[in-house]
């Protein structure tokens, strides 16, 4: 079994790579940072001895993705799973950001993710089942002032994922949307979680558990995974509470968190 992971040098991507390697899967890893990719690939090889193929790639660049796919073809790789982890999260008000930052969120989270998915499907085995995971977010469940673009981009992935899953059922492809709350991927994330106080901790789910269950659920053909009981409750509330009221609440919360972090 071979798994392709985008954003593999980042916190969540790295954890997914370790999880897959621990299961004995071979890996095709990609990330913007060639250096980071080299480090994590070396670590995986040393720890688990699986085959790791690595190629750095700016997935927002059409030609770079072409090269990535050509590289995989050249290595004779056939894929069984794609984990779309690469994504951008830049917080702040719409007017506090340059438009470049805002369009970058859309380019990476939406356009590039779909590009990679479209191309990677051409690498699936003729006879086997193929699994796709989109890393959406708990933020996809409601409109989020001060993270408006990010949350909307993750909403896109959630809806897209569900729709695509239905469409590709007859192709023997399963699609899972992962909708996690905060995850302690790096030391600065831990500090951010602490800044949110009780609710930060309550919505935080352990990285190692999320990665393990995500892979297990993807293999079982699940459609949506919201890790953590509190998060699941929030996601259900997101469906019944009117969006205007949610937006009001979220706005109040993020304003105070941002003050604490500043």
């Amino acid at each position, binding site marked *: 079994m071979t798994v392709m992971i985008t954003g593999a040098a980042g916190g969540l991507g790295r954890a997914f790579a370790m*999880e897959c390697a621990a299961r004995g899967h071979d890996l095709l890893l990609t990330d913007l940072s060639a250096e980071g990719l080299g*480090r994590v690939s070396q670590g995986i090889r040393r720890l688990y001895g699986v085959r790791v193929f690595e190629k750095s790639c700016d997935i927002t660049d059409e030609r770079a993705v072409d090269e990535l796919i050509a590289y995989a073809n050249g290595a004779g790789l056939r894929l069984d799973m794609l984990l779309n982890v690469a994504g951008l999260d830049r917080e702040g008000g719409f007017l506090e950001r340059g438009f470049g930052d805002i369009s970058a969120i859309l380019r990476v989270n939406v356009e590039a993710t779909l590009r990679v998915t479209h191309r990677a499907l051409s690498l699936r085995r003729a006879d086997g089942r193929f699994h796709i995971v989109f890393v959406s977010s708990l933020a996809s469940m409601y409109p989020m002032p001060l993270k408006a673009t990010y949350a909307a981009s993750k909403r896109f992935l959630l809806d897209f994922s569900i729709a695509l899953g239905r469409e590709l059922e007859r192709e023997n492809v399963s699609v899972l949307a992962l909708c996690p709350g905060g995850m302690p991927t790096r030391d600065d994330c*831990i500090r951010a979680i602490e800044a949110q106080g009780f609710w930060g901790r309550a919505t935080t789910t*352990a*990285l*190692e558990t999320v990665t393990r269950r995500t892979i297990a659920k993807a293999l079982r053909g699940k459609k949506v995974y919201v890790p953590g009981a509190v998060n699941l409750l929030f996601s259900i509330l997101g469906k019944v509470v009117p969006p205007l009221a949610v937006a009001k609440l979220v706005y109040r919360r993020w304003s105070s968190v941002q003050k604490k972090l500043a």
Partner: protein
Amino acid sequence: MKTVVVTGATSGIGLAACRELAKLGYGIIGVGRNADRCAGTAEALQGEFPEASIAYFCADLSRQAEVLRVGREIRSHVEEKCEGKLRALVSNAGGVRSYYTTTEDGYETVFALNHLAGFLLSHALLPCLKAGGGRLLVTSSASHKGTRVNWRDIMFRRRYNPLAVYKQSKLLNALFAFGFRDRFSGLGVSAACVDPGLVRTEIGLKDTGGLVKFVWGLRMKRGVEPEVPARAFARLIDAEEPPRALYYRGAKPARHSRQVNRKNADRLWNLSEQLSGAHREEAKT
């Protein structure tokens, strides 16, 4: 003048050890993670001991590339300024995390920082330790007792428990000292680990939160000042004879866990070589 390398040297036990050693006339090479704190500490120590030779190097030791880089830098510094000789390496840097996190190498952070970093750095500085008839001192802790190495899942990917991870890392420290002694005492480099006792340091407050922070805050109140274990380190380094025992509580030999044995030490040594590439040439140059 004799020179010592101390990691985790900008706060807690490491900083106090630097101060005690500078007092005894040792040249100090400190390693810290934060550049500002390194510069500030170096300046403060130099002010306190105007005669002493004090140099600080900044490195995030949880990252192997950084360990290798700072190891190279320290080696050329020692070759240039200290005739290539080191009296001691105090492998002291360590931390706790509330959650499972990975380093850029994909390894669990506490495993990478508390154990693997010291393993790799000791290999990088081995030529200097050999030349100086040096000693390796590792900061372990009584918390290494009552636990075993979780060989099946040494990075705790299954069930992350901050206390269990920390306890294991301190057991690994003792096993590392055991393995190091076995391999290098014939070459004139000795090794021991030191249990500093319960010390009032901020180890449990950095990059943690919630329960870990709360419990450590309570424990801290009962701890001794870092000067107490620092004096033990200084005594073990300053003594004519290299440390005879493997495990010290303060400066006195003490009993360690039965898990600290050759079988476990060899197993850890092989795994550490595999994970750090320390036995390969690139780590040595």
